[in-house]
């Protein structure tokens, strides 16, 4: 069995001003991994939404708290993890936004689920949330949702 490919990692503290630096780093990583431009843009958005969720909800606006992002590229897929150590995301309390009502909030997780081929949430931790996104490379799949380890699927 071959060793997993090395991952790029990025750490930031929980201020919204750092999101731009995260996006720059992620674009560079995805370019290095040969990801096409539209998929780069979509994944940058998805990861940005998860980090914004950590800032706003897991840390409730508190600065100076850690958020870690890692990206690994396999032949058939990309695997991205976003991790915080604040209040855990509760999938049971998540309600899909009703797009017919033109909502002005609550669209972030909806976008993440639209963009990734699978989204899983580690709920076995003592603190915080680890999100794992899988995006298959073109021609690979299936796109059906999956869970990893003991994590719960968000879709």
């Amino acid at each position, binding site marked *: 069995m071959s060793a997993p490919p090395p991952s790029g990692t990025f750490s930031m503290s929980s201020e*919204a*001003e750092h*999101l*731009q630096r995260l*996006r720059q780093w992620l674009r560079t990583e995805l370019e290095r991994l040969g990801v096409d431009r*539209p998929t780069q*843009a*979509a994944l*940058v*958005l998805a990861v*940005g*939404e998860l980090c*914004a969720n950590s*800032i*706003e909800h897991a840390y409730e606006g508190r600065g100076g708290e850690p958020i870690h992002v890692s990206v690994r590229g396999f032949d058939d897929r990309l695997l991205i993890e976003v991790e915080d150590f604040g209040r855990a995301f509760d999938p049971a309390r998540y309600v899909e936004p009703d*797009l*017919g009502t*033109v*909502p*002005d*909030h*609550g*669209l*972030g997780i*909806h*976008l993440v689920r*639209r*963009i990734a081929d699978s989204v899983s949430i580690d709920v076995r931790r003592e603190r915080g949330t680890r999100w794992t996104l899988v995006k298959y490379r073109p021609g690979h799949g299936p796109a059906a949702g999956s869970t990893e380890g003991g994590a719960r699927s968000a879709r």
Partner: protein
Amino acid sequence: MDIDVTRSAEITVVAPRGDLDLAAAEQMKRTLTDVIDGGSRKVLVDLAMVGYIDSSGMGSLVAAMKHARASGGDLRLCALQDDVRAIFEMTRLIKAITIHGSRTEALGAWA
């Protein structure tokens, strides 16, 4: 973020410059609220210089659009870059907000 506001007799054009994300959304919402509360009934947001928008940024535009409509006016968008347009399509907001190709087209169509 830099936000240019240009008032004319009929239409107020608001042109943000930079990424419209969580860090900028509150400033954007405040600017648009001030414009609407100041009496502008037709508000055009020119997104030509916005290369990235997230759900917080979209939320600031949607909230302002609802405020404008509740005040008897409207808020429209113009000049969306491809990545920004893709997000409006993904959330179906493209059906709820009037979007013009360019500022010139918007000003001509709405005046």
